[in-house]
C-alpha cells in the first residue's frame, strides 16, 4: 500500500512529462473556461439580462442551505474514512433513513395537530427521532457488515458498503413503498421571507435560515465533541494509529462504534433538514446527496472535519450558483440540468489542482519516512 507521504512526495516531484502536460492543459483550460463564463455572465448582468440581484441572492442562500446538509453528511464519511480508511458508501442510506423517519414523524404530528399547534416542539421531536434512527442504522451496519472485515484489504469493506447501500435502499423501497412522500407543509411564518438585520435587501427565506442555523449548531457541537471530550480524543487517537491507541488503553471497537454513531447522528439531522428543505422523501433520496457529500468530504480534504463542513458548504454553493454563473455566460441552454456536472467537475478540478483537498490531510508520524 502506498503511504500518504509517498503519494504526496510523488505529486510534489518536479518532473515534467506528458501527464503533467495534459494536467496543465486541463488546468489552463478550466481556468479559461471559468473566466470566460464569468465575464460573459457579468456582461449579461450589467446589460440587464439574466437573473436579477435578488435571484442571485436566493440562489446563494439556497446553495448554502443545501451545502449545510451536504456538510453534515460529509462529516460521517470523513470520520469513518479517518478511522477505518474506507469510503462508507452506505452512509447516504443512513441519511435517507433519517429523512424517512422525519417524514413519518412529521406526518404523524401533522395528523395529531402538533405540527400546526406547536411547530417548534414537533420539529425538535422529529429531529431527535431521525437522529436516533440514523444512529441505530449506522451502528447496526457497522456491527453486522464492517466489523468482521476490520483486517481485510481496503477494497473489501468499500465493496461491502456498496452492497449495504443497495440493501438499505431497496429495503426502504419495499418496506415503505416506492412513491415519493410529501412532508407536510411547515407553518406559514417559516415559509415567508425574513428581513435579516433589518437591512432591507437581506430578505431571506426563513426555512433556509433555520436549516443553516441548525446545521451550524450541530457542526459546532460535533467539533467540540471531537476536540474537547475524552471520547473525541480517543477517536483522534484511533484515527492516527489503531494499534498504538489500543496499547494506550483505548477500546478501539467501542471508539469505532462511537464514530459510526456520531456520523449517523449527523446524517440523521441532515435527513430532517433535507425533509424540511425539499419536503419530499423517497427510497432513493440518499443516493445523490450521499455521493455529493462524499465529494464534499474529498473537496475539503478527507479525514479533516472542518474540511468536510467547508467542502459541503462550498459544494452546495457551486451547485446552486455555478451553472448560472459560469455556464450561462457561455450561452449554454438549460444550465440548471447541469448542476450535477458542475458538482462533479468541481471534484475533478480540485483533485487536479490540489490532490489532498482544500485543507489537506494530516500526516501521522509513522508516514513521514
Amino acid at each position, binding site marked *: 500500500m502506498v503511504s500518504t*507521504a*509517498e503519494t504526496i*512526495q510523488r505529486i*510534489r*516531484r*518536479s*518532473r515534467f512529462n506528458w501527464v503533467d502536460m495534459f494536467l496543465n492543459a486541463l488546468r489552463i483550460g478550466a481556468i479559461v473556461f471559468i473566466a470566460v463564463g464569468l465575464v460573459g455572465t457579468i456582461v449579461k448582468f450589467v446589460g440587464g439580462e439574466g437573473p436579477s440581484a435578488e435571484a442571485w441572492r436566493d440562489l446563494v442562500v439556497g446553495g448554502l442551505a443545501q451545502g449545510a446538509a451536504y456538510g453534515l453528511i460529509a462529516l460521517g464519511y470523513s470520520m469513518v474514512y479517518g478511522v477505518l480508511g474506507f469510503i462508507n458508501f452506505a452512509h447516504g442510506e443512513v441519511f435517507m433513513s433519517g429523512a424517512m423517519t422525519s417524514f413519518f414523524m412529521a406526518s404523524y404530528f401533522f395528523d395529531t395537530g402538533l405540527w400546526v399547534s406547536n411547530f417548534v416542539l414537533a420539529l425538535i421531536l422529529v429531529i431527535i427521532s431521525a437522529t436516533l434512527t440514523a444512529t441505530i442504522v449506522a451502528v447496526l451496519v457497522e456491527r453486522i457488515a464492517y466489523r468482521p472485515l476490520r483486517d481485510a484489504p481496503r477494497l473489501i469493506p468499500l465493496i461491502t458498503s456498496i452492497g449495504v447501500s443497495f440493501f438499505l435502499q431497496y429495503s426502504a423501497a419495499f418496506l415503505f413503498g416506492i412513491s415519493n412522500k410529501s412532508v407536510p407543509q411547515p407553518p406559514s411564518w417559516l415559509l415567508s421571507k425574513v428581513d435579516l438585520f433589518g437591512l432591507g435587501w437581506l430578505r431571506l427565506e426563513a426555512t433556509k435560515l433555520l436549516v443553516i442555523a441548525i446545521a451550524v449548531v450541530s457542526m459546532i457541537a460535533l467539533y467540540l465533541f471531537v476536540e474537547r471530550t475524552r471520547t473525541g480524543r480517543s477517536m483522534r487517537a484511533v484515527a492516527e494509529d489503531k494499534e498504538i491507541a489500543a496499547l494506550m488503553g483505548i477500546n478501539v471497537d467501542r471508539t469505532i462504534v462511537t464514530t459510526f454513531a456520531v456520523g449517523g447522528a449527523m446524517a440523521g439531522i441532515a435527513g430532517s433538514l433535507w425533509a424540511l428543505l425539499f419536503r419530499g422523501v423517497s427510497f432513493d433520496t440518499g443516493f445523490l446527496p450521499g455521493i455529493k457529500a462524499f465529494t464534499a468530504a474529498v473537496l475539503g480534504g478527507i479525514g479533516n472535519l472542518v474540511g468536510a463542513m467547508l467542502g459541503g458548504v462550498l459544494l452546495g454553493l457551486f451547485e446552486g450558483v455555478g451553472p448560472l454563473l459560469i455556464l450561462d455566460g457561455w450561452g449554454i441552454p438549460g444550465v440548471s440540468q447541469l448542476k450535477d456536472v458542475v458538482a462533479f467537475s468541481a471534484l475533478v478540478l480540485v483533485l487536479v489542482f490540489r490532490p489532498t483537498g482544500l485543507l489537506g490531510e494530516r*500526516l501521522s508520524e509513522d508516514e*513521514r*519516512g
Partner: protein
Amino acid sequence: MAMLEITGLKKAFGGIQALGGVDFHINEGEVVSVIGPNGAGKTSFFNVISGMFPPDEGEILFEGENIGGREPSTITERGIARTFQNVRLFPNMTILENVMVAQHCRTKQGIYGAIFRTEAFKQEEALIEERAKDVLSFFGSRLMGYRFDQPAFVLSYANRRRLEIARAMATQPKLLLLDEPTAGMNPRETKELTGLIGKLRDERGFTIVVIEHDMRVVKNVSDRVVVLDHGVKLTEGTYDEVSTNEDVIEAYLGRPAGSES
C-alpha cells in the same frame, strides 16, 4: 570519473532533517558500506537515490547525468537497483514472476505483441524466463525447481532476502543498493551472504553500496566505509581507519564498533 557522484544532498521530512548535505561517490567495481547508528539517515539516503523521494537540494550524478528527482522507474532503467530493509517482495506473485517482472524496463513487448502472440513476443518471453532462472541460480538450488511456482510469501525470511537480491539483479543494474541484506539472518546465513556479495562484484560485475549493521560483514566486503550520523557524513575510509575513529565510536554511544546494534 566516479560512477555515482553525490554532492550536498539534503532531504527533510516535516521538520526533521533526514539528510543534511551528504557528499558521496563510488567508482565502478567498488563495494562501499554505509554505516551509522539508527536514524542516521541511511535508508533515506537510499530512498532519495532510488527516486522514491525527490531530494530537496543537491546533485546526484549517475554516470555524469543528474538523476535527482527523476521517477524511480527511470532511475532503475538507468541502472540502479535496490533492496529494502523490511523485505518488500510481491508476496502473492510466484518466485519466478517476481524476478520476471523486474525485467520490465529491459524488455519492450506491449499490448499488441501480447494479444497477437507475435514471434518477437514469444522470443522475448522465453528470454525473460531464461534470464530469470539464471539470476535465481545465483543462489544455488534454494530458489530453483519446484520453488519457481510457489508464491513468494511461503519463503523463509532468509530466502525472501535472497529473492529480493535476485529481483534487483534481474533489472540488470550497474549499481546495486543493498539495504541491510543480512538483517535477521543467523550467523551461518550471514557468512554465506557475505561471500555472495563478493561474488556479485567479481562474477556479475556489479558496483555495490551496502547498508549494514553487522561489522564483520562490513569488514569483509567493503573497499571503503562511509559513516553517516544525523544525516551528515561523519567520516569515510577503509574499515580499519573508520573503526578506530573517535567520532565514530562516540556516534555509536561508546559501544564497541564490533558489536551488532
